[in-house]
């Protein structure tokens, strides 16, 4: 299925909302800011007053021209420096259970519903501990364990319990987790294990989500995110851009994340994977990706904004640098779940050159 704007319009407000969910229509002023003055608005509203951009304002940022990009990134960088400081949070991620997922997230090579070449496999605990040690040696303060599942079953929870205990027993690093949708008991159980942060992405703006996933709803994801926030774990929640969504839907994702107020937002750029429904989509243009970074920073001035998957393909080395000077203040080092990343030494050398120290473990509590 190819995503399209018509389908999205039809899907707007299609489901009943629960009390904790945001309104289907973006909340924002009725007068849209023009592309010409949005940079002035961003400077006064976000940089000076610390107030996030509204939906219409985010959209205006996404509509700025290439000629305005340098100034836009500079403002986003100033916002990051003022409200987050120069430190960069470094994280490694690892797949505990790869492939064979029953869900149909159209960007994901780990779905069992597509003809992706990724085969199902579990990683053992000694390998997890080894990976955590190597990740820590880069200066990273976060190590996120990920499983390709709809939600954790009893076996996975027991694996997590053993893995977290083994890592905490030998490596000085925060352990994060991403295990799909949770119920309240599972959420509390993970918090009790000592999980520092839980990742559960919205993936896309609410109106575009049915074009991306059909086996569960955006609202289910929102509810897990709300549950995580009640347990004391930090919430990590982001999404992907470049999946065929419109600028309006891109702005919607940033606005809804702003409303959710996660501790961290990982920003992924679609890396079209062979065999998936989005496998033939084009790679997002670098300037569009940089505009997204700035827009998300201005929508989330006090949130950790992390480079996640797809940045190597979408931005390359030069763009990676531009993003770090345009609102990004966290990176994933090394490889991803099914694809490879840069050598961490390249990222760490870049941070050193930009005089952006790695956030110390002691600063993350």
């Amino acid at each position, binding site marked *: 299925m190819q995503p399209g704007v018509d389908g999205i319009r039809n899907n707007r407000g299609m489901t009943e909302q629960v009390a904790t969910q945001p309104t289907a229509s973006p909340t924002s002023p009725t007068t849209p800011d023009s592309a010409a003055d949005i940079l002035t608005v961003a400077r006064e509203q976000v940089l000076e007053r610390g107030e996030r951009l509204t939906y219409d304002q985010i959209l205006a940022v996404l509509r700025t021209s290439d000629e305005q990009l340098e100034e836009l990134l500079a403002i986003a960088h100033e916002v990051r420096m003022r409200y987050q400081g120069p430190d960069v949070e470094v994280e490694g991620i690892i*797949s505990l259970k790869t492939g064979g997922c029953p869900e149909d997230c159209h960007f994901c090579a780990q779905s069992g519903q597509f003809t992706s070449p*990724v085969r199902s496999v579990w990683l053992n605990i000694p390998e997890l501990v080894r990976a955590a040690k190597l*990740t820590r040696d880069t200066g990273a303060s976060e190590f996120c364990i990920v499983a390709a599942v709809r939600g954790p079953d009893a076996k996975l929870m027991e694996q997590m319990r053993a893995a977290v205990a083994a890592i905490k027993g030998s490596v000085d690093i925060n352990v994060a987790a991403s295990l799909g949708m949770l119920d309240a008991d599972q959420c509390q159980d993970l918090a009790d294990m000592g999980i520092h942060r839980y990742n559960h992405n919205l993936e896309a703006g609410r109106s575009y989500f049915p074009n991306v996933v059909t086996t569960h709803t955006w609202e289910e994801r929102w509810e897990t995110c709300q549950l995580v926030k009640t347990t004391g774990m930090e919430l990590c929640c982001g999404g992907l851009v470049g999946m065929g969504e419109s600028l309006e839907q891109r702005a919607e994702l940033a606005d809804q994340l702003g409303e959710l107020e996660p501790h961290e937002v990982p920003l992924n750029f679609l890396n079209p994977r062979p065999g998936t429904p989005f496998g033939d989509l084009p790679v997002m243009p670098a300037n569009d990706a940089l505009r997204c970074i700035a827009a998300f920073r201005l929508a989330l001035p006090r949130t950790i904004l992390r480079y996640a998957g797809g940045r190597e393909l979408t931005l390359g080395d030069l763009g990676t640098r531009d993003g770090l000077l345009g609102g990004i203040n966290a990176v994933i080092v*090394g*490889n991803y*779940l*099914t694809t490879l*990343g840069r*050598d961490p030494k390249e990222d760490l050398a870049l941070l050193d050159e930009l005089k952006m120290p790695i956030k110390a473990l002691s600063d993350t509590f």
Partner: protein
Amino acid sequence: MTSISVDAVFCPRCGQPLGPAGIASGEHAVCRRALDLEPPRYCASCRRRMIVQITPSDWTARCIEHGETTESTWGPA
């Protein structure tokens, strides 16, 4: 980056037969570039789908017939 054996018969990314030009040119040039940021998924000798495990620092690909390959993706310290 995934290194490719000169003896490869099948493309480790798409599993299709490699012609005389190998993976460096022709229809597999795209695969060659993609393997800069991907581990192999198919055995280059028999085109079986391999079991691949990725950690932040390396990957391991296992073919039930032709064994296991591990490559570090981090350069020397």
